[in-house]
């Protein structure tokens, strides 16, 4: 240790911390104050449109974790597949969004909500009924820019922090 600057370096540092004392803190007190997440957020649930789904099971093939379990049966009359069972284990899911990207019929969406913690890992399994699109379910704009415009703008820390220059 040499006092090359005779303590001026220390004094400079002290002014920076003192300046921060009078700045607005950047903390967000989460459950009380909420920021809008990105319009493309990959929330930890999948939303599924039953009408559009043809049961091609591309999503299950693409899922490299193996979190999607789909069972279909061919119905000869209408020449389509009927989805008998469609389950996503969101406990295994890593929210990579590849299934949404791969779906050729635009029947799968990421959810916009992110607070889906459960007490039991079994509750994390999304069944067919839980994944259906309902009006109160928010769909993320991930891979669907036209859906993204309906969502609120993302709050950015860049804009939130106001510096007293």
């Amino acid at each position, binding site marked *: *240790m*040499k*006092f*090359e*600057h005779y*303590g*001026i*370096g*220390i004094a*400079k*540092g002290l*002014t*920076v*911390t003192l300046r*921060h004392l009078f700045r607005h803190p*950047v903390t967000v007190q989460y459950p009380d104050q909420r920021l809008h*997440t*990105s*319009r*493309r*957020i*990959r929330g930890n649930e999948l939303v599924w449109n039953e009408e559009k789904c043809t049961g091609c099971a591309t999503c299950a093939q*693409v899922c*490299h974790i193996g979190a999607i379990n789909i069972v279909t049966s061919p119905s000869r009359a209408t020449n389509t597949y009927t989805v008998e069972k469609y389950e996503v284990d969101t406990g295994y899911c*890593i*929210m*990579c*969004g*590849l299934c949404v*990207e*791969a779906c050729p019929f635009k029947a799968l969406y*990421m959810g916009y909500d992110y607070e889906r913690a459960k007490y039991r890992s079994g509750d994390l399994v999304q069944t067919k009924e839980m994944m259906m699109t309902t009006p109160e379910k928010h769909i*993320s704009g*991930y*891979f669907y*820019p036209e859906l*993204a415009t309906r969502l609120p*703008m*993302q709050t*950015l*820390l*860049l*804009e939130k*922090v106001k510096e007293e220059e």
Partner: protein
Amino acid sequence: MVIKTEPIILNIGPAHPSTHGVFRMRTTLDGEVIVEMEPIFGYLHRSIEKLAEERTYTGFIPLTDRLDYLAAMSNNLAYCLTVEKLAGIPVPERAEYIRVIIAELQRIASHLIAVGAFLQDCGAFMTPFLYMIREREKILDLFEMVSGQRLTYNYMRFGGLSQDIPDEFLPALRKFVDQMPSYIDEYDQLLAENEILLARTKGIGILSRETALNTSASGPVLRASGVEWDIRHADPYSIYPRFEFKIPTGMVGDCYDRYWIRIQEMRQSVRIIKQAMKQLPPGPVRSTVPWLIHPPVGEAYAHVEAPKGELGFYLVSDNSIAPYRCHIRGPSLINLTALRDMVVGWKIADAIVIFGSIDICMGEVDR
């Protein structure tokens, strides 16, 4: 005169506040002086290279995020470049520019964490770390905007990007780029001239030029030792030749140089982003690539200058949908080779500082 005492063996880690993960230094101490050090790791080994062999080429992209989770975009970029090299996939112009912007943002974010954690290892109680986390948060906001995720982005694809950037991205980026230099100045003011920091870092843990090259150190560690070796410049990938930037190099190779170089690289990254924003062309961001690609039989090695050093992917293809072999040259692991040389002879406190100055990410060391 140095008094010798009975050596004691001290395990620094695996659960220790400043080993940046689950890293263990098995040190033999003579008083406070380290006489022998053996790095032990593998606590986070997930065998990602084996997992790659069981996944499709596309399906492996999300896993590359989990390597160096502080610089996931760089990992994505390196992997995608390798596959593009292997399969000969063209990349649209706009995607290249966005890739550069994103990669440089990621470099800033990773360096912020590196410098902040390093200063905290020096003992500055959380303050620089939290300031730098604040700036990283702004970058993460931008990444969240483009990719929808804050840490594991999964944003790059073969032949471009998964999606185009949203309209609100560029104004926000411009704002960030305008703000960032003043914040870097503030970090300089906070600690760069601080006598205590100088005493703790100058001349500590010197890695000579020869040792650095011989131990295959890369990235800021190598440049701090005075080797002007930056893959963006030496072996340019993507569109880096179009940008002007300097390669900061150190003189001594001590901890302060490594710290200083990271600060300077952030400034250079801001410079690159500014240039890329000016030149950003319109157009598609993704060339049409089938979901399951079958690259021709062969092998490819591509490397990028990740924030921590040379990140390379070595892929061997057997014309199937999955890589036959995927090897990841993680800079964190190989930079650790020189750790013993740097640490032995210094005190425990110095060992922590030296270790912090290398800036490793255990996700990449253990893989």
